[in-house]
């Protein structure tokens, strides 16, 4: 009756990553109304700096009430459906992106394609770069949503590049080659590599060495590089962020063929904390890709109303510069709170300098070094201790026991409560390990649920 795509589950929403949300939805934490509810730490959202945006809006009412020089532009915007995008908005965007890269690279608005969020940008790039059955290599662990965004309707395959905690998950030359050979074994034609830099879920930025390995590899194999840089504005510590654009320019590769095979994905969902507005984009040096992607953007354009509002906001350079600086400062502080709280419970994190989350090492809390044990621990954390965190297996991590914990989508008080619960979890695990009890009865309270299936919007 329906298509294969509709009847299968390659949308990936039955994974544990999303099941945690179901539990959260049923019993969401609220400081006052539901203090025993589940705290959402599985949602990579940036809610730390809205006050800044709100105060800017309050002091710039005319500009944003869909007015320009006191004349209403409502009609003009309501009719504007040109898939080339609102010129003023694209001009501001490329400047914003360049600023974020320390102005070490310059971007051309005619190479920018606007899409409905980076979800759409990533899918569109797949449609443009690969035929069904072809493959892209992705370093693991990676964002669970990629299974849907890159594979579902496109028919493209993902082949993992193995990265492990042994070397801080750095992408090595041998890992790249191994992944390529693995694809060949399965008769999959590799069309490119997709990296997320800064990384989700790791929160780390790629080193110059890694980027050079990647570029060398792409040159050797004559394949594409997609660099998903949606967290580029969340870098709060050194080492500083190096965009793929910068790495290529540094090596004077503008005239090399690889230049035409590099594409950047960006979005305002993380850096500016505006996921609801659905502002994504593709930046490509390849004219054919820009042309095809622009046509495809018809299936998911950015609302003209939103393009206009944001163009006004980004035009205020002083505001955006201050915002980014303050935002990074708050992220850094918040991350340090989380790291400190976890440390107090004897839990370490991967050293990170970006992102809205930490990659947390809970391997020592596993009953055994298996994914079954990881799932068991995860269920305990969600159901008994009321924390929705994301298990590493949902991010295709090769080693059990790692979890992603988000810190930028809650108040400080909530984060403190979360840390207390983590401490309680660790204490109970120690008690469990010491006494060999199969369940810690005194902790088994009203947080125990049945996991049932329910749909939820997959967020990052």
């Amino acid at each position, binding site marked *: *009756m*329906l*298509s*294969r*795509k*509709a*009847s299968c589950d390659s*949308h990936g929403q039955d994974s544990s990553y999303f099941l945690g949300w179901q539990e959260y939805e049923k019993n969401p934490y609220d400081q006052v109304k539901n203090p025993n509810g589940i705290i959402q730490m599985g949602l990579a*959202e940036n*809610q730390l700096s*809205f006050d800044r*945006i709100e105060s800017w*809006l309050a002091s710039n*009412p005319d500009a*944003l*009430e*869909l007015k320009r020089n006191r004349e209403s532009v*409502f*009609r003009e*915007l*309501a009719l*504007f*459906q040109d*898939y*080339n995008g609102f010129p003023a908005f694209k001009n501001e965007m490329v400047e914003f992106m360049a600023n974020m890269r320390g102005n070490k690279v310059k971007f051309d608005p005619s190479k920018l394609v606007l899409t*409905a*969020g980076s979800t*759409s940008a990533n899918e569109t790039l797949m*449609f*443009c*770069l690969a*035929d069904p059955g072809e493959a892209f290599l992705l370093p693991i662990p990676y964002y669970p949503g990629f299974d*849907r965004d890159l594979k579902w*309707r496109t028919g493209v395959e993902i082949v993992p590049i193995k990265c492990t905690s042994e070397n801080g998950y750095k992408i090595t030359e041998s890992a790249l080659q191994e992944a390529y050979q693995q694809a060949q074994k399965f008769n999959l034609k590799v069309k490119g590599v997709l990296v997320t830099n800064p990384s989700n879920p790791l929160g780390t930025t790629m080193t110059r060495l890694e980027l050079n390995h990647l570029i060398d590899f792409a040159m050797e194999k*004559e394949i*594409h590089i997609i660099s998903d840089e949606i967290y580029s504005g969340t870098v709060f510590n050194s080492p500083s962020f190096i965009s793929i654009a910068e790495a290529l320019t540094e090596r004077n590769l503008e005239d090399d*063929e690889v230049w035409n095979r590099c594409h950047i994905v960006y979005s305002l969902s993380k850096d500016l904390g505006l*996921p*609801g*507005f*659905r*502002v994504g984009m593709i930046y490509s040096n*390849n004219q*054919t*890709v820009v042309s*095809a*992607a622009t*046509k*495809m953007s*018809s*299936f*998911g*354009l950015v*609302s*003209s109303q*939103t393009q206009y*509002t944001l163009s006004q906001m980004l035009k205020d350079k002083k505001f955006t510069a201050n915002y980014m600086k303050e935002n990074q400062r708050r992220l850094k502080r918040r991350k340090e709170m989380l790291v400190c709280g976890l440390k107090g419970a004897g839990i370490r994190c991967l050293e990170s300098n970006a992102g809205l989350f930490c990659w947390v090492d809970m391997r020592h809390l596993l009953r055994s070094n298996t994914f079954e044990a990881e799932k068991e621990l995860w269920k305990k954390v969600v159901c008994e201790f009321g924390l929705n965190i994301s298990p590493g297996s949902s991010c295709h991590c090769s080693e059990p026991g790692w979890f992603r914990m988000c810190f930028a989508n809650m108040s400080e008080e909530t984060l403190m409560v979360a840390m207390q619960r983590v401490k309680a979890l660790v204490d109970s695990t120690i008690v469990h390990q010491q006494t060999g009890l199969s369940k810690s009865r005194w902790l088994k309270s009203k947080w125990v649920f049945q996991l049932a299936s329910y*749909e939820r*919007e*997959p967020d990052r």
Partner: protein
Amino acid sequence: MGFTLSNQQQLLSKMATGNGHGENSPYFDGWKAYDSDPFHVTKNPNGVIQMGLAENEMCFDLIQEWVLNNPEASICTAAGVNEFKDIAIFQDYHGLPEFRNAVANFMGRVRGNRVTFDADRIVMSGGATGAHETIAFCLADPGDAFLVPVPYYPGFDRDLGWRTGVQLIPVACDSSNNFKVTRAALEAAYEKAQKANIRVKGLLITNPSNPLGTVLDRDTLRSLVTFINEKKIHLVCDEIYAATVFSQPSFISIAEIIEEDIECNRNLIHIVYSLSKDMGFPGFRVGIVYSYNDDVVNCARKMSSFGLVSTQTQHLIASMLSDNEFVERFIAQSAKRLKARHMRFTMELAQVGTSCLKSNGGLFVWMDLRRLLKEQTFEAEMVLWHTIIHEVKLNVSPGSSFHCPEPGWFRVCFANMDDKTMEIALSRIRNFVAQYKEPIAPRKNNRYWQSNLRLSFQSRRMDDIMMSPCMMSPHSPIPQSPLVRAT
């Protein structure tokens, strides 16, 4: 550093290097002419008037007044900024509940409250463009087909087929019975598909019709429902022009038909809607998939991640469309103004012996210029069309771009301009028709045939433009369904 075409073809997907987007057809001369010489009442009074764009600009004054009086509907005003944060972070693909409720409410009112819509079945999409693609992804596999009555909106080839691999099979309709969709034509199209081993997954209808501007009568709708139930195929009803119906016979939605005494598996019924035509908001990208099939709702909702409506826009629309007094006033005024515009247009054309298909909806007329063709061929239609663009300076849409089987029909939009511009357009048509009492013959060394067809668009509307590969030359690289050639 140049890239050869074959380099690109190896490097990129077939989709990216092919012509499935449909935009390389030679019919873009009209747009090119308009873009290079756009009419302006004072700055360029001799420019080309855009009559190829089905947009609704008739009631912006009402909307602007509402926006001014309701500052809280915008999250950027002092009155609305307290909601900014919640709206900006809301990315749930179910959409804001108030948005869905407001849209369901609006859809019901547009249908005279004869039916109600369930807000939980409202699924967002990137405009009707996104809605159609999503429906195709949900209902059909690559290689499957949808039946579509001709003439139809050129964008369907891209929307339903480009990235999905689905094909469109025309259902023959012609002027002998005012382009009605007959049971016989449906059966014939279905049979042809069967013979060619093509699996038909559904029937797509646009009601009110683009480009005809007509509505389907009750008997026809009922016969369509019977047909799809017998064949066990889906029925997708594009109702994006529902509120543009300005006179009798009134618009009957498929939603009403299935509530009547008729045998129908509701799992086969789906509606595509949008605010681009009825409200005149194409820029806001508000598309809706409304399905009576729970699995389709669920799947389409997951797919809506690829084209959600900006929450800023959801918030504005929620506010606007739940103001019942405003909605009722808008619907009534819009119909009234469209009716007046339509009447003026058709009457003026009739006075110079030019008829249009009798219609009572849409933002355009289906103009009959067959008598001006030297011969009843599509080549002659092209000649006439080039004349209209370059000499009369009107960008209208030739019927062949809508897969119309008879040459000589043109879609002429009238709702995307003010009264003054419309009068100028009418006078140009009057003069033209008066001049050309004889059919228009192709010229020797016709420069139009030699015009450079390679275009680069700096800024273009992507909606409602000629993108049909249907009437391509035999040398066209665009793959066609074997059934298209056969009709």
